[in-house]
């Protein structure tokens, strides 16, 4: 799939983090922006972070103008991804349905659905019968929060998380990018406000520009540059059942019950809920949330009760203060940051890589990613989809 090179003493571009975003950044830097002398430094194995732990939902059903055009751009990239890198990432547009239970929620979803359409995405508002026609086995008649309808995006769906990481990795490798595994960045050499290179577990590596894309480790890595971030690290758990013959076609989210689910191509029900809610770097969560998520699932679709949970795992989320990401330069020249993806950065992988590559290559932000500035918090331009304010565990 790829070479296993030793690090060179210096590169023009060093990307820290061999997750989805780091690999995609390297891919586009090399293939689209025609840059060379690029390395991706990964402390463990490629794709060992959230890219290989997420529940693989891709969608562009955002509300705010700072977000929606970016995620729609990402969706368009997903739609051509496999041909782009000639690798099957199993992009599967089976639709996402966000259920609604109150009139106020319907109003909010209508606003959101309209925002999506105005940005060129697709959206449909379903009433109760519309939902019933799609998923007749949901709990319509005996529920604490009766289903009143839903917001459907048909172009949304899932992709195979490992496949995405590997596709980008292989494509980057073939374009000459050095993918260096087991290479942990342990320090940054900064002189006169400018980054010169990074200390790593495999020695010092000089760099013209450094792009940081380390998701849940953002706080740790940026601390090496003396920066504090508007980010907290939290654990999000995910769940998969034993393999079952197909029962759920698309993705369903049940906000009122903190539960979402889809079924993988291998037959497992892949589901999750809220983050555990406390700062954590442990990549594992606790029982309370396990129960909470299962309760949500059982309340919404009691037919899954006889299935069994096979595995639980956790990933470290870079929860930002407004729930939206950052793709920006920093006050240190040559040091760039891509972070704050919360539980939703998988779907952003193509656009995030593209936008970060654009920024690194041209020193100007990609138009649809302009809002993701680091100083938006100080300046009062948060992009707060949920309206929860600077409380990361509520986003």
């Amino acid at each position, binding site marked *: *799939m790829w070479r296993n090179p030793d690090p060179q003493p210096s590169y023009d571009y060093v990307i820290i983090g061999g997750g989805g975003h780091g690999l995609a950044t390297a891919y586009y830097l090399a293939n689209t922006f025609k840059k060379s002398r690029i390395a991706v430094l990964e402390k463990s194995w*490629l794709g060992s972070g959230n890219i290989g732990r997420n529940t693989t939902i891709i969608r562009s059903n955002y509300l705010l103008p700072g977000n*929606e055009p970016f995620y729609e751009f990402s969706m368009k990239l997903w739609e051509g991804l*496999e*041909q782009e890198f000639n*690798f*099957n990432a*199993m*992009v*599967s547009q089976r639709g996402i349905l966000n259920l609604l239970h109150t009139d106020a929620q*319907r*109003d*909010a979803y*209508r*606003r959101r*659905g*309209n*925002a999506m*359409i*105005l940005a060129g995405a697709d959206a449909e508002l379903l009433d109760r019968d519309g939902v019933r026609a799609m998923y007749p086995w949901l*709990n319509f008649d*005996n529920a*604490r929060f009766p289903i009143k309808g839903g917001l459907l995006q048909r172009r949304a769906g899932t992709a195979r998380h*490992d496949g995405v990481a590997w*596709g980008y990795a292989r494509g980057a490798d073939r374009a000459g990018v050095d993918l260096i595994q087991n290479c942990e960045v342990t320090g940054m050499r900064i002189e006169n406000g400018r980054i010169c290179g990074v200390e790593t577990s495999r020695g010092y590596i000089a760099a013209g520009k450094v792009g940081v894309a380390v998701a849940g480790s953002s706080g740790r890595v940026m601390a090496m540059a003396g920066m504090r971030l508007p980010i907290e690290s939290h654990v999000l758990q995910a769940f998969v*059942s*034993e393999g*079952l*013959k197909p029962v759920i076609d698309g993705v369903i989210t049940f906000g009122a*019950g903190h539960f979402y689910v889809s079924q*993988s*191509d*291998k037959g497992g029900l892949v589901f999750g809920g809220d983050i555990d809610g406390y700062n954590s770097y442990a990549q*594992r969560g*606790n*029982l309370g949330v*396990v*129960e909470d998520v299962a*309760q*949500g699932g*059982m*309340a919404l679709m*009691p*037919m899954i*009760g*006889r*299935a*069994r*949970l*096979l*595995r*639980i*795992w956790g990933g470290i989320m870079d929860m930002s*203060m407004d729930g939206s990401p950052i793709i920006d330069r920093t006050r240190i020249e040559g040091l760039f940051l891509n972070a704050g993806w919360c539980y939703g950065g998988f779907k952003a992988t193509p656009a995030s890589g593209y936008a970060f590559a654009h920024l690194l290559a041209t020193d100007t932000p990609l138009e649809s990613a302009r809002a993701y500035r680091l100083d938006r918090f100080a300046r009062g331009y*948060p992009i*707060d989809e*949920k*309206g*929860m*304010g600077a409380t990361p565990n509520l986003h």
Partner: protein
Amino acid sequence: MTRLSGGLIDRSRSLSFTFDGKSYTGHAGDTLASALLANGVRLMGRSFKYHRPRGVFSAGSEEPNALVELRSGARQEPNTRATVAELFDGLDARSQNRIGSLSFDLMAVNDLFSPFLTAGFYYKTFMWPRAFWEKLYEPAIRRAAGLGSLTHRPDPDGYDAGYLHCDLLVIGGGAAGLAAALTAARTGARVILADEDFRLGGRLLAESNPLEMPAPEWIAGIEAEFASLPNLRVMRRTTVWGAFDHGIYGAVERVSDHLAEPGKRVRQTLWRITARRAILASGATERHIPFANNDRPGIMLAGALRAYANRWAVSPAQRVAIFTSNDDGHRTALDLAAKGVEIAAVIDARTDILSQGSYRTIAGAQVTGSRGRLGLRRIQVTQGGTSEWLDCGALGIAGGWNPNLHLASHHRGRPQWNEAAQAFLAQEGFVPGLTIAGAAAGQGSTARALASGAEAARAALEALGITAGLPDLPQAEDASLNQYPLWHVPGQDRAWVDFQNDVTVKDIKLAHQENMRPVEHLKRWTTLGMATDQGKTSNVTALAVMAELTGQSINQTGTTIFRPPYTPVSLSVLGGGDTGPHFRPRRLTPTHDWATSQGAIFVEVGQWMRAQYFPRVGETHWRQTVDREVLSTRKGVGICDVTTLGKIDVQGGDAGEFLDRVYANAMKSLKVGMVRYGLMLREDGFAWDDGTCARLAETHYVVTTTTANAGTIYRHMEFCRQCLWPELDVQLISTTDAWAQLSVAGPNARKLLERVVDGFDLSNETFPFMACANLTICGGLRARLFRISFSGELAYEIAVPARYGNALMARLIEKGADLGATPYGTEALGVMRIEKGHAAGNELNGQTTAQMLGMGRMVSTKKDSIGAVMSRRDGMVAERRVLVGLQPVDPTDPVVAGSHLFTKGAVQDTANDQGWITSACFSPHVGSAIGLGYLENGAERMGEVITAANPLQKQSVMLRVVSAHFVDPEGVRLRA
């Protein structure tokens, strides 16, 4: 095949059951697997990918092959391991993952395509042409996915959840666990012993003579003692499946899975066990040795063969061979031979091995092939370059034992390879408070397991300050394995490593060629260890093969770690049984009974159920009802239960100062006996919540919050009090549930209230708009009265202790009959507040500013209050959208919340978006639909006609921008 002699089955109780529609009988004490074997059934399933015929491989919960659909109808349960399904009369099971019959599965063609279906094949194929993946390939792959199936019907059984606490939790009731529990329980400490099996004893039950006395006898003695110890709780059929933080373990007790139906009992219970210390005595799982075509029904772990013979008195075949790389394989041969099973040969990979019984031993040999499409018929044995075929119906493989470390790695501790033990072992402290004993700690012999269990318990209790003596333990077998490392038999044909997911040695080689060498890449590329057994019988073997290929040691190669749950857990029991309407608690308002008696329709408002409207006979549409409720209120008087609004009592010498800091606007200056509207910001400067603040006495305020934020605001105020300003003299208490509060609104409100107050002067002069007071009503009932209005009418809110709410409601309606007193629900409440232009949840959605609400100037610059500083950030000051009223140019047009607002004629896209409609309703007062919305520069655009776009529903409507106060803009009514 008939039964062997002995065993722990109850031959006096016959149980009949069906498999794939065919009837069989077994005995009490059987599992489905042992009963099927006893009936000569070796073929029990099909593999995931290639649909290879498969038989039972193990005798425990690690089973990868014999998965069945158990029960039928809504109780159908996919992927149940036949090896742990306790037999009951009437059990009904079916094989899975086949089209056609189990012996003739049409999907078996996949096996012919296997050269194309190797590891990673998905990724490199199927993407061309572009449309084909989603239209053709993926649907086909999805149809083939999974093993068993669900029925789409709700689970009919009951479930429960409970909490347990103990000093010591012993996980596993084999030799080590029994010794540990005995040691601990004798001290009087609180002990829980849990075992997934329905019988205590673990491997002791599977051996012929591990102890000086017959094992069942010893176990029975211990169980008798256990029964006499009230401080010990023995939990059979209970799987401890997860180790969480701080000594919390998740466990599932299968209360009635061994019955045809649970009857009145629950099916399973989820236990959350909080243990000060725990001992993992979960035993070990045998390894197999991959060789060509090693997946035929009849080929199984040697220890399982032995267990079937000793515990269940059954052998899968009359003639059996053993393939081993250690001494344990010989023990299986001896036990089987003792039960009259013919041993075709023991093939031992080691040289210099002496025969241990009167059967053929082939030393320095390996099994290199097998025959038999639906069940093993013969094996090929190769010794020093020459091969021969041996007839046998079953083959036991003994490749050594892997300690069951799963729970110990639930905190992500990575086991290390131990050369001496030839096994991965967990390190001390992987899970704080958890120690490991017995075979799980690599202490494989019975004697060492017993001793290590007792010692582990003693040490664990010592750490808790409890002294335990070591019990007398029986003499026990103490042989060592003499393990020889043989990880697979080289060869060209496919040799399975992970049976269920069809991962072969060749797949591992392919992963190696692709440079997918880190164990996690190996696992993901090949799907190894991702089946329902989480690789219990395959992971270690696979990474040893990888180590061989890369030339690294096993330790350098590393290992994947196991995640919870230990074995799969039903989603029903994890949900704990609180489903349907019981999913979340339901809070009822004080007037709920009364409203019910009036035929009210209720609506979920967060945790609450509130009356939405009160239909009357003859009303056929909810709008009729709501219009009537609105008009009756505006003409006469309406009454609404508003108890759900959060109420917080604020008392103390610094209460005013405190509220000044919490609210954006000033509260200290509020006069006693008066109420003020209050706006709270979040610390990031956005509008958070609004409500009223009433000063009942010098040092006593009562503030209200919105229903949705009642809990959050109280928490926040406590944060301010305890964390920010503990020096202030102020106390808080939430009184939301203590007071029933009714809104009495409309021109007749005063007249009505005069009929219930105890001589209180309600005149405008003494009790003006925004006044408040303590008083009594109805002849001495303590009450609070606030003259505040959400509807724009002359209105009051009256609060009485919650238990009187229902009666007060009834009393007011009765006393106001001639005044047109009408109950109204949340729907009419919503209409009236929109007509009056009051913000509610849709406007206060956490994304809006005081400025947008038209309250920018309320944020005092003279004092510091929460959110004030941040509300002055550039971006927030630059915000131009403000709340306006919206009315359709054509009064028959709808106004739809969630529509986006555009200058008339503008291109409708994100760039030109000027705001949105937050709330809308039909206004009986205006006579058309109306709405509120945030519009860019709205205040300067009164009278302008704009477009409301709702492309989602293909609507576009012309609206006129108007004041948000559709009713009584001057506020004359309020002050009447």
